Every structure is written in C-alpha cells, then in structure tokens.
C-alpha cells in the first residue's frame, strides 16, 4: 500500500467513527427507551419477623397461608411429591434442627413454625441458576423469572431451606379459583415466595402480613432506622434458620 492510500483510508475511517455519537440524530428508536424510564428509588432491604409467641396461638390458624395461596394462584396438590408451597407450617424441631435437643420444652419442640423463602443475602439458588432465571434484586428480594426458568431444578437442590417447589404438572386444574391479578405458573418451572414484590410495588404489605390479625408477622425495611422490624431486631433476641451456612436469611424468628 502506498503511503498516500494509507493516509486516505485512515482519514476515511476516522471520519466514519466520528459520526457515531451523532447517529441517533438520524434514527428513531422503535419505541420509547425504557432505561430512561427506570427510577432510582433508593435501596430498601426488606425483612420479615415471625413472632412465635403470637403466631400459632390460635390453634390451627392458617390465615396467612390461605391469603398467599389465594392471591398467588398456588395449586392445591395433595400428593406431597408434587405439592407447591410458598409459605407453610413445619414443626420447630424440623425448622430449627440445630436448636433442638433431647430434653427441650416439648411444646416448643412440636410447635408449628411458619416458613417461607428467606430471601437470603447470599442466595445459593441464585449462584447455581444457569439461566439467571432467579436473581437477587437491588432491594434484596430473591426473584424468579418464570419466563426464563428451564426447570433444571438446580436451585431446589441448592436451597438449604426447601423453599422452592417444582411444577411437575400443569397447576391450573388444581387451582380452585384463579385470581386475575397474578399469573399462574406452567408445567416445568420452579416457583417460590416472592415477598409479594407485586404488592410492595403498590406500597402494600405482603399478603401474609396483612392477613395475620394477631400481629404475629412484621414486615419492613431494615435500612430504615425507624422501621418496626429494625426496632424489634435491635431490641429483642431473634434467631434465623441455619445461620452457620452464611446465607444471611432475612426472615427472623423471635420466641
């Protein structure tokens, strides 16, 4: 190549590149740009406190569980292998295995404890998901994108709390009345509690918290110093499930 040709080409290339920043002046996006519409809301950290001295006082109360099942279109499948659960009750010695011992208070040992997704600070389910169908939002909620879930169930294996369920079959026939406000799921995806992110977006409390008339469930932003959860956590002794794993659950229990 001649020196002259090289210079010509170089000038042409550089002038071509220099047009790029102004290219948007000549084209229009197909539809309004969504990234501009995103608002920076500050960063809350949602957490829940289950007060076990109040919860379960009323024998066999399932108000919170029923409310969640109803608004999230959770199927009622009797076969435990296929059952789908977002929030449910389990005996204390199963939930807090490392806190249970031989001669402990029998009432407490058999007490039913409310369990749900812990929305961990270090969620193992997120680390293993190969498609990023589950991820931790900026406000700490561990979300599921059912559109993207391929049903590999790695997350079910990774979750130390058994908080995730797989849809082995089409859930629709098992839903008594479909709530139009929330989609159902489809066969072949994993699902779990979403901390009612669709209600939080509307400034509402999670359905379970709202349904509990005894005040046994407290929900709020731990980053806010005057929030009720923050006050309870800073004044009372609370326990979390399997803290030694380092997942940092955001569902706390007070006895």
């Amino acid at each position, binding site marked *: 190549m001649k020196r002259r040709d090289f210079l010509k080409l170089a000038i042409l290339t550089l002038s071509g590149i220099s047009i790029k920043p102004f290219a948007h002046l000549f084209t229009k996006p197909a539809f309004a740009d969504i990234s501009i519409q995103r608002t920076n809301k500050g960063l809350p950290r949602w957490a829940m406190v289950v007060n076990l001295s109040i919860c379960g006082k009323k024998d066999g109360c399932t108000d919170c569980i029923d409310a969640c099942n109803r608004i999230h279109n959770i199927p009622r499948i009797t076969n435990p292998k296929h059952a789908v659960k977002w929030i449910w009750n389990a005996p204390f010695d199963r939930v807090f295995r490392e806190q249970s011992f031989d001669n402990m208070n029998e009432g407490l040992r058999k007490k039913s404890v409310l369990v749900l997704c812990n929305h961990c600070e270090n969620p193992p389910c997120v680390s293993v998901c190969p498609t990023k169908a589950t991820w931790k939002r900026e406000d700490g909620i561990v979300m599921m994108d059912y559109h993207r879930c391929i049903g590999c169930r790695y997350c079910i294996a990774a979750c130390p709390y058994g908080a995730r369920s797989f849809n082995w079959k089409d859930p629709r026939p098992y839903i008594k009345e479909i709530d139009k406000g929330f989609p159902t799921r489809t066969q072949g995806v994993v699902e779990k509690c979403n901390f009612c*992110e669709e209600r939080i977006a509307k400034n509402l409390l999670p359905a379970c918290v709202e349904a509990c008339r005894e005040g046994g469930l407290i929900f709020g932003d731990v980053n806010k110093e005057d929030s009720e959860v923050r006050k309870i956590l800073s004044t009372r002794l609370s326990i979390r499930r399997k803290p030694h794993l380092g997942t940092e659950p955001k569902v706390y229990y007070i006895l």
Partner: protein
Amino acid sequence: MYDRGKIITGIIIFLVLLFIPFLYNFITGKATYVPEPVIGTSEKECVESKVFMRTDHMKLLDEWKETVVRHGVRNYKARNGKTYTIDITGTCMECHTDKEKFCDRCHNYAGVEPKCWNCHVYKKVAGR
C-alpha cells in the same frame, strides 16, 4: 437424450403434484384469505401506533416482560406521552377483551403459538 418421453412426463407429473396445493387454494379462494381479528374496542389509539402494534407488538410485549420482571418498573411511557400500566391482563386485554377473536385469529393463520396464556390469565368470554 434417452427416455426423453418418460423423463418429461415424470417432470410434468412432478410439477402438477407440486402445484396442486397452490391451485387448490387459488380455485377455492383461500389464497386471498386474510384473517379478520376483532379489535374489540372503539378506542382510536393503542399503546403505540397502529402500524407499530400490528407488526411489532411481540417486541413491545417482550420488552414489557423484561421491564416488570427484571427491573420492577410497572409503567410504560409511550411515545404519545401517555403512561400505561404494564399488564397484559389488565391493560391489553381490558380493550381487546376477546382473546379467541383478537389474538388467536391471526396467530392461527400465521401458525405461531405464543405461550403467554400458559401462565397469564385472560377473561373467558361467556358462551364459549
């Protein structure tokens, strides 16, 4: 050329067989068939322009899906300046009430099977 007769007859038979479906559709008038979706609303404008929605609604819905699920943003500011709630059941199907007559007519014609309704809910029109 050997066996000219056989080869040419063979080619003609092949061509006739190949074009039978086209001829059939042409004679029965199916070739000019155009699906007629029932819009289901007297509203003059959709979220975006009519032309855009007709050709690119799937791109918009895909973008909407990402916006709500991945970014937690539930409002869409359209180019006409109005803000819409991103909700396929609440916003789209509020106007286009009849899924069978609105969505399915074109989708069936085009041979596409979107999986929206495996999970998302739409109002069943009475009597069907």
